[in-house]
């Protein structure tokens, strides 16, 4: 009895801590959604209330689309995220296969370099990239947003850990069945490590979709902006009274990510926890 009660007690405590910390993390999002449906007057009131007295969402969301070309920004974001992801995977999967399963001289040294690559923050490379892009004339273009980061040390590392766990016999069988080394990557290794690929894809898309740094540095043309850089335009507009539309736009930007994450949640968590064990 006592043991059971103690057990219940500790379980309750655990839940209280978890709920409190998740509320803490969720609060800004809830606040964002709340602001996006409030009128400007109410947004600046001193009292804290989540539910607005007058529902002003319609106006705010409409202005989010009208004041700035939000759909255009989202299209840009989608194009860039998908291009980056496709190139990242096209490079990371074969590299990871080579590092995990092929024997060649200098393999360990190359893997060490990948690990070093994990540690370099991409901001460090901004100035050299700016100069380089300027020289080859691709500043202020989609390419300048896509090319930095198409080689992902994290992607190579994560996939390599997963590929290492694929049994050698499977690769041997594939070689006998007539698969080339590249077919082995795409037909055997990638499908066998689908959770890792999905986890990596989500992380890659989220970080690129939300990235504010690259567009601010490389882009002048408003038509090429990505969503987070695009909604900065609300701020520079006249007085600071466009919080409502800004928050509405921010909500719209986060929504696709949330939906994608919820769909892939299980595989995503699988992917990251397994890699943590290895």
């Amino acid at each position, binding site marked *: 009895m006592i043991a059971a009660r103690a057990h219940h007690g500790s379980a309750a405590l655990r839940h209280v801590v978890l709920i409190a910390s998740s509320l803490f993390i969720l609060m800004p999002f809830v606040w964002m959604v709340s602001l996006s449906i409030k009128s400007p007057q109410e947004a600046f009131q001193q009292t804290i209330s989540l539910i607005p007295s007058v529902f002003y969402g319609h106006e705010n969301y409409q202005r989010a689309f009208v004041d700035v070309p939000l759909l255009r920004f989202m299209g840009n974001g989608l194009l860039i995220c998908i291009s980056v992801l496709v190139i990242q995977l096209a490079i990371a999967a074969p590299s990871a296969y080579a590092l995990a399963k092929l024997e060649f001289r200098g393999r360990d040294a190359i893997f060490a370099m990948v690990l070093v690559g994990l540690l370099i923050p991409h901001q460090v490379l901004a100035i050299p990239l700016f100069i380089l892009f300027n020289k080859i004339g691709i500043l202020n273009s989609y390419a300048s947003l896509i090319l930095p980061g198409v080689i992902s040390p994290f992607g190579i590392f994560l996939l390599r850990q997963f590929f290492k766990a694929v049994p050698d016999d499977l690769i*041997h*069988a594939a*070689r006998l*069945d*007539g698969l080339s080394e590249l*077919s082995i990557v795409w037909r*055997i290794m990638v*499908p*066998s490590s689908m959770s890792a690929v999905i986890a990596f894809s989500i992380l890659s898309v989220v970080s690129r979709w939300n990235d504010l740094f690259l567009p601010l540095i490389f882009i002048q043309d408003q038509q090429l902006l990505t969503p987070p850089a695009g909604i900065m335009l609300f701020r520079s507009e006249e007085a600071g009274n466009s919080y409502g539309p800004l928050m509405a736009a921010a909500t719209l930007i986060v929504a696709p990510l949330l939906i994608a994450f919820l769909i892939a949640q299980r595989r995503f968590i699988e992917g990251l926890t397994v890699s943590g064990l290895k």
Partner: protein
Amino acid sequence: MANVSATDITKIFGGTSVLNSVSLDVRDGEFLTLVGPSGCGKSTLLRIIAGLERQNFGSIAIDGKAVDAVRPKMRNVAMVFQSYALYPYMTAEENIALPLVMRKLTAWQRLPLIGSWMPGARARRAEIAREVQDVANALGLGPLLSRKPSQMSGGQRQRVALGRAMVRHPDVFLMDEPLSNLDAKLRVQMREEITGLHRRLGATFIYVTHDQAEAMTMSDRVAVMKSGDILQLASPQQVYSDPENIEVAKFIGSPQINLIPSIVNEKAELEIFDMKVAGILPASIRPGMSVTIGLRPEALKLALDDSSDGLLAHVTYVESLGSDSYIHAKLVDRTTAVIARATPAEAATIGNGTRVRLRFSPKEALIFSDNGERLRSNNCLPILRKVGG
């Protein structure tokens, strides 16, 4: 169809030699078994024949042509792995079809979605589906084709792995302990199926196992390996009854062969404890040499009568298997353990601690020198005598 020959194959892993200049000739259509304890290099040799691993020295020829520079898929060999190595996210049907898909479709035709619109792709796909169906029927896999490997039992996976090997009609089948993950009953059943398959296909089979019973029942010839050497290559009967050396004798046969220490006296007789055996030694053996006598359990005949000749022994344990009984006993030195086969009727009269005499015909004694070499006996008639008799 093809014969396979390995010549002086040496494989070195990180400084240690795993195969020491192994040579092996497998005849066209033969069922040859590589048998030996764990780690003796059986799988390594098989992988080298398949081209999945490169030997450091030596050469592999298939059908008379050296294939050392030929990639695995061009060698026309198929392999069945101990772990089955089925593609986990593909159905049984897709697993079996893959070798054909890779061979019969062009890269364009293999593309997902648009591939089936490429000219000729549909006809080829239909042809592949037909061949997969044929193989599935031959193996009784029909109803399982749409299942994934995780939804099948070990025996069913084994069959799918066999099907994937069969579907491309290879000249040579390499099988690496394909039955070791199955339960005893299924293993016996699959033994029959695989030998039946070998007869039907007429292809060359090289079969790896560490189970000597599999080796004995399935093969045309058996190669007994140890620590990277082939100790003997002969028919199952011959490796059992006429082993080249003590390692082969020890590995083949269950229960293990009885090994009894012995000394050659001045009259060129063998002294085994209180027993003397004359006339079975080669003339070259000098007095004073110690040798080891190998006797199979069925070569030892039980005699209760204390006055008769034979090796004196104390029974320690009677193991009854129904049709046969194995009598475990210790010889007079109280350390040498032996096992004799007896009928249940004989065994019923014996209990732990019973003193028995174990008699044998000297013809059946295998004599090994101290370094394990077999010493073949002369043809003259042996004479058995009791000490002091």
